């Protein structure tokens, strides 16, 4: 049951698209910064399979330039 938080950086000019893309993904919550092109992403998945699946989806987002991990927690650890 992993919980992670990240700083998500959009590609240039794609801030709104990134917020839309991330919001549409299951197990994702976002907190966009008001005055910078940064979005806090919190993921809360029920198991490792769905975590892996979510990671794959995140990698494919065209609006996403990079993800920086800020916090990680996994029940098994």
């Amino acid at each position: 049951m992993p919980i992670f938080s990240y700083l998500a950086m959009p590609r240039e000019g794609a801030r709104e698209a990134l917020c839309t893309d991330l919001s549409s993904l299951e197990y994702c919550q976002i907190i966009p910064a008001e005055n910078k092109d940064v979005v806090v992403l919190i993921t809360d998945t029920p198991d490792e399979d769905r975590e892996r699946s979510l990671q794959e989806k995140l990698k494919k987002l065209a609006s996403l330039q990079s993800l920086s991990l800020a916090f990680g927690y996994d029940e098994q650890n």
Partner: protein
Amino acid sequence: MRLDRRQFIKQSAISSALATAGALFPGISFGDWSRLAQNNSVISWQKSPCRFCGTGCGVLVGVSDGRAVAVKGDPNCSVNKGLCCMKGYHSVQALYGKDRLTKALIRRDGAMVEVPIQEALDLVAQKLQETRDAYGKDSVAMYGSGQWTIPDGYVASKLFKGCLGTNNVEANARLCMSSAVTGFMTSFGLDEPMGCYEDIDHANVFITWGNNMAEMHPVLFSRMLAQRKRRTNVKIIDFATRYSRTSQAADKSIIFRPQTDLAVANAICYEIIKNDWVNWNFVNEHVSFHKGKTNIGYGTEDHFAFTDKAESIDFEDFKTFLEDYTPEKVEKISGVPARDIKYMAALYGDPSVKVTSFWCMGMNQHTRGTWINNLVYNIHLLVGKISMPGNSPFSLTGQPSACGTVREVGTLTHKLPHGVVMNEHDREMAAQIWEVPVENIDPKPSYHTVEMFRALDRGDIKFIWIQVTNPMVTMPNLKRYRDGALKEDRFVVVSDVYPTPTTDIADVILPAAMWVEQEGMYGNSERRTQHFTQIVDPPGEAMSDTWQIIEVARRLGFEKQFSWDQSDYIEKIWEEYRRFHAGPKHEMAPYSVLAERSGVQWPFVDGKETRWRYNPRYDPACSNGKDFDFYGKKDNRAWIWARPYEPAAEFPDSEYNFWLNTGRVIEHWHTGSMTRRVPVLHNAVPSSYVEIHPEDAAELGVVNGEKVKIISRRGEITMPAQINGRGVPVRGMVFVPFFDESYLINEVTLDAFCPISKQPDYKKCAVRLEKA
């Protein structure tokens, strides 16, 4: 509404990400989130200073269902601007360890038995009174802490010095900050830094003198790194005896042999004068030159006494004194290449460069701690880089209220809340505010900390009350003092939040309220007083240390002096205490202002905080009409001192051929009694170790994790080796963190101290190693 475990973890994830974003993108705003967080009725947030180090980070403590469940950095606090370190983020978990002390315990027939706390307080008062009657007023003592709140220390001083008439009040800040105090007093005549953390935003060069800030003051170090990233002209120079995380992050790491910082500081002054980098306008107008006694001893014997004597000298005398400290001569003493000494001198000497020097235990826990503090001030004074934004000699503190409670309230044997016991006027002021006869206050200091525990061993002290500290882990040459405390007719009272090796020797254990379970104030390194309210209830019968003292004082007949009501006693104590500091040099903010803000810097005059003292642009106490006013000294000047290099009390020889250095790690606070009960922090560094240089380890035939026996003239300890870990000592030195009570490294250390400050040197003694 209850917050379940998963929600809590998610809140922590969010807080971490927001804090990271705040550190990387200054000024970033998450307005919608903060409204959501404040109003979602899951968590309510209240401000407090962090419980741990002397940085004084502002935190917001999240409370749900009467329990502190989360922490985030307080964005309104200028100290940390929303950032915390790993201890800060996990600090509330330290409230909820499984073995929290919730009931009073007293020793009966050798065993500790639970009793109602009122009964335990009766016994404390009775024993204190009986001891005093039988053996005299100086047979009882109070030993407190830089983690005491300001009201804790104030009522302790009032009871013992004002009512009981003994100066047997000391605090563990003697072990961490007293050389800083005597350094300030001898150089400037007044304690505590002239600058503030805002210096970090202005300085071009940071020189850390024996100060592993990356681990010990991580938030301030992050601010330095952020400045280096943001501006192109910022450098960090780490000047140390061991390669640490600070060295790794620095632009340049310079290693010196233990104790030889004295010689290097003098060599820097030599170079400044030789190259005519002296700021003559500043020196001629604001500096006077002095020398003191030399060959001043180390205090290893009982009843050691020393009083320094200042003699005036002139600039030419000082210049002649420095001729023994050419960079080439000092290279031979210190191991620091002459070119590196010249490099540091050039940084200090360049008028276009703003330099901030930081130090903490490396300079203070030093048998010449006062001297090395003086010598770094000498450098800044010669070039006039002081009391201006970015130009700052900055003595950091280790504990959250070493400044607020110990240095400002004066919970040391010679001190009063204003001034010293030796001064008649100061005694009169205290007697008037405390409403006690002036004759009650003894004009003679009694025992400093090491001598206090020696007196307990000798039997000169029979009763000691220890609050918020763990001396049975932290005293140097520990075995003597533990054996002394355990002697037949000694009576030891310990107020604490968890069982420790100190509660193990207690006759009475009083369960204490911790941090935000009570109202109080701390005072941090930059003259900032920080109020916190009671946010959660203490467990069981746990009671604030302040109220414990008040209860005992009343039992001893001092109802008049301790007449406060439990509903507002902190406010009333603060307003009484504040009277001691009235005036522009040290005016403290009123209670109502403290309660509103995330800390207020003193002097607080006409509603304004003072960021840089002795500079009339910022400091309302300046009155001489010049560009600086060092009003602490009678000659209105800052004092440069000729202080020589003298060797350590003990150094490696053919029998004990290694230096032993001790200290902390970022994950643990002091003796670990709180942080070792936080699972994340405990799991990160579950036990102590001895850092050894890889070549020394190879010669010893030891690999990582294998046991090594460390032997000194006082004791021995066996512990696992760490090779090429986070810190790497130089060849011939080992380093041991002291947080782990399973490995009492202070069985090995030496109780030598600076003869002026009486602060022990935990950084240098001689040991030998054996493969265990």
